[in-house]
């Protein structure tokens, strides 16, 4: 066989030559690093990959990826991505956007891309703020957030990105953190390999407008006690020495954090993560410090038999095969009753 061996690409081969224009220290740098590493890990073909984004700091992402890129308009990236997939289902389509882009103006498109189960990998960078427009609060900002548009503190309660995705019948839901370079690429690779819409929330620090918003669970000294890595089939344990864990209260059906060895708690009380369990996924998604650790990793994965665009294509083919006109324009023009007018 006369095959040309392509040298494997490295993470940096997925970076464009364009100057990256995020603020120095922005969490987006870490995320793009993780994405580029993931691309190398999975051996992504740049020519077959498209990054689609809306508007926002996060949405500048495509400019920095040595792939095809479409920087569209605010909130609508999932719709463009759907169009792209319907025309060419073989393309590897990633959607990238911020919390404002994906959950404020774009919430509806996010929801519909999820429920249709379009085969895209949706990365939502949640910095709980509008970065690009200089720091207004976002739908994920916590109550009381002071920002230029809420100088006296915000009043509305935030939406939880993953609860929202699950409510929209997501079949793949995961969470990662900008600072977790050791963990994030794994999550991204899983998301990418999922057939259908995979929704990943990536916690991202905006150093300029919301610095430290996540430090209570991302700082080195606290992270072991405030993050729990969900791994399918493994016990839901956390803490420095993995002595803490999640137990289910069978009456209230709520999760509880417990300490192994205290009050007679043993490993048997701890639940094993089952990423196909929708109910548990919902409860994990809702957990927040200080009462709970933040759940990261793949919270839910339950692939449907088929993604939307593939099913559309299949139907198109099946119907086309049975059609009597067989794509013949003259037959189409003449369909139905016709009559002749002679000279």
């Amino acid at each position, binding site marked *: 066989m006369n095959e040309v061996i392509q040298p494997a690409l490295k993470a940096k081969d997925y970076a464009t030559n364009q100057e990256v224009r995020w603020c120095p220290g922005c969490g987006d740098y870490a995320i793009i690093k993780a994405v580029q590493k993931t691309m190398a890990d999975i051996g992504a073909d740049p020519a077959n990959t*498209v990054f689609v984004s809306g508007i926002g700091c996060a949405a500048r992402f495509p400019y920095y990826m040595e792939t095809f890129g*479409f920087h569209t308009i605010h909130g609508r990236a999932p719709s463009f991505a759907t169009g792209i997939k319907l025309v060419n289902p073989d393309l590897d389509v990633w959607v990238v956007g911020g919390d404002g882009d994906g959950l404020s103006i774009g919430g509806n498109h996010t929801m519909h891309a999820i429920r249709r189960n379009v085969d895209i990998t949706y990365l939502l960078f949640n910095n709980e703020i509008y970065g690009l427009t200089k720091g207004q609060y976002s739908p994920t900002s916590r109550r009381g957030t002071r920002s230029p548009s809420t100088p006296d503190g915000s009043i509305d309660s935030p939406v939880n990105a993953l609860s929202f995705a699950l409510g929209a019948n997501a079949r793949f839901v995961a969470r990662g953190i900008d600072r977790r370079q050791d963990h994030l690429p794994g999550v991204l690779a899983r998301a990418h390999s999922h057939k259908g819409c995979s929704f990943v929330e990536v916690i991202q620090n905006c150093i300029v407008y919301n610095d430290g918003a996540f430090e209570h669970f991302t700082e080195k000294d606290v992270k072991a006690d405030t993050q729990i890595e969900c791994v399918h089939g493994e016990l839901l344990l956390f803490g420095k020495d993995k002595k803490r864990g999640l137990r289910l209260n069978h009456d209230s059906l709520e999760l509880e954090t417990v300490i192994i060895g205290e009050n007679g708690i043993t490993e048997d009380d701890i639940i094993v993560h089952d990423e196909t369990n929708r109910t548990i996924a919902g409860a994990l998604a809702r957990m927040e410090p200080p009462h709970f650790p933040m759940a990261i990793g793949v919270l839910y994965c339950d692939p449907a038999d088929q993604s939307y665009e593939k099913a559309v294509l299949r139907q198109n083919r099946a119907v086309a095969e049975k059609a009597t006109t067989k794509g013949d*324009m003259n037959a189409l023009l003449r369909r139905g009753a016709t*009559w002749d007018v002679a000279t």
Partner: protein
Amino acid sequence: MEGGAVAAQSSRHEVTDAVVRFAGDSGDGMQLTGTQFTQATAMAGNDLATFPDFPAEIRAPAGTTYGVSAFQIHFGSKVIRTSGDEIDVLVAMNPAALKTNIDDLRRGGLVILDTGAFTARNLSKAGYETSPLEDKSLEGYRILEIDMSRMTVEAVKDHGLGNKDALRCKNMWALGLIDWLYARDRTINENWLRQKFEKFPEVAEANIAALNAGHAFGETADFPTEFGAAYVAPARIEPGTYRALTGAEGAAMGLVAGAKLAGLPMLFAGYPITPASALLHTLAPLKDFGVTTFQAEDEIAAICAAIGGSYAGALGVTSSSGPGIALKTEALGLAIATELPLVVVNSQRGGPSTGLPTKTEQSDLYQAVYGRNADSPLAVIACHSPGDAYYAAIEACRIAVRYMTPVIFLTDGYIGNASEPWRIPDFEEHTPFPVRFRTDPEGYKVYERNLETLARAWVKPGTPGLLHRIGGIEKDHLTGNISYDPENHQRMTDARRAKILGIAKDIPAQEVDHGQNGGEIAVVGWGSTYGPISRAVSGMRANGHDVSHIHIRHIWPLPENLGELLRSYKTVIVPEMNTGQLVTVLRSEYLVDCKPVNKVNGKPFRIVEIEDAIQAHL
């Protein structure tokens, strides 16, 4: 109905044309009846034009005036251009139908009504205080009172239907009668019934029985002489194979043809809205023509998906009507900035806001030409009839792919629903305009322009060696990278403008539809006013008036010779079904004192209204 000179068929008297309107309750099947009569009329070789008028409600309570559904057909041995100003024969299936339609009947016209439906209850539902059959309100019209309900039930009684189902055959009884009146070949209707009710043969046969009974009734009925059995000679129309075509079908097939001629698959993304949905419905089954239809969650998602489709290498098409198009404007700006082909179909309806969804209007021209933020030029094309919709849609596709630009294609509710006999073209005779995607990496610059068209190259994602990024932020005129450079922005703004204005070189010079270059009066129209303007102008020319008809398809850019042409008339009048929109564009472009003639009541112009406007300037 003009009296015919020679009785061409045995005892029948000849008429050159006639206008018949079927009117009844939404449940009475008037649209079907009208369509069937249209079919038989078309097969008889008459020229024709129709005007269906639906109620706004899905299914209003029976007997109410707002639940009346009507279908008008104008046919003849001469060329027919409108569905007719006045009705010659009104078929009224109930009091509400009579009430809402009688005003359009010409003095001396004939009403055929179903007395069986003129019950006290129905009269009161229609808001009649006294019965029009008894008071003198119908004086001046000829009335034919027939108990169609009873006769229908009688006719179908052997077919084992319940009374309610039997009564539903009433429309076929009426059809049979009118078939007889104009000597239509009713086997066409019979065949259709058999096919439609394939799975319910007894229903088919009952309907046919009603049809035949109505027909038989004609022979013995006591018609006023001038309305007796008539004969309408075939029209002298171009030889060829014909079909009846609605504007929605014309536009749909034109889009499919356009994509084929470009050598592209089509992604049609829409969101239902009256009267635009018809296009989505017509295209959805055409899967063997490379058409994928996508019902999006809203109009914004629809246009974005269509742009995504174009980006990926298909012909992206989206469609809506006024309020939905409004929602698409932001995304349209992106298609303009990224210079991707896109066809945006606007089936105009009455506005503002929800307005009058089932009524027609031409009031989205401003929106099409000017309705965007920023300097955002694009091309605008309007069709003027169902058949023209086919060709105009092809032209829209051609411009979109050749110039890498969105094109707004304007049609309206009237064109969409109206039908006309259409000479079917041979697809092989259309000139293809195949798209050549760029695949050569050598020297590729994202925004480098074709010197002739000023279009950039179209590259499909997935093409090795041509990785690039585009977006809505101003881009460098070559690399396509983000550029905040002032001179570059000026350059790109100028280029976008020049590209669109340059299309004027690639479209036909404006012709005079009827009349001559220069003279006293030009009547300038666009879109669905074609019929009445054409008819009014030819009528007045026949009476020796110096008046010409110009009909504009290319709304933006305008044809290069248009200014000179308009200046060659003493007076230019512009009838529009809006408060004066094309007139703004023409006045501003050419500084010609074009006079607006406006009508905004949800109905097409009547010929006489155009004639009056012309008279006023003679």
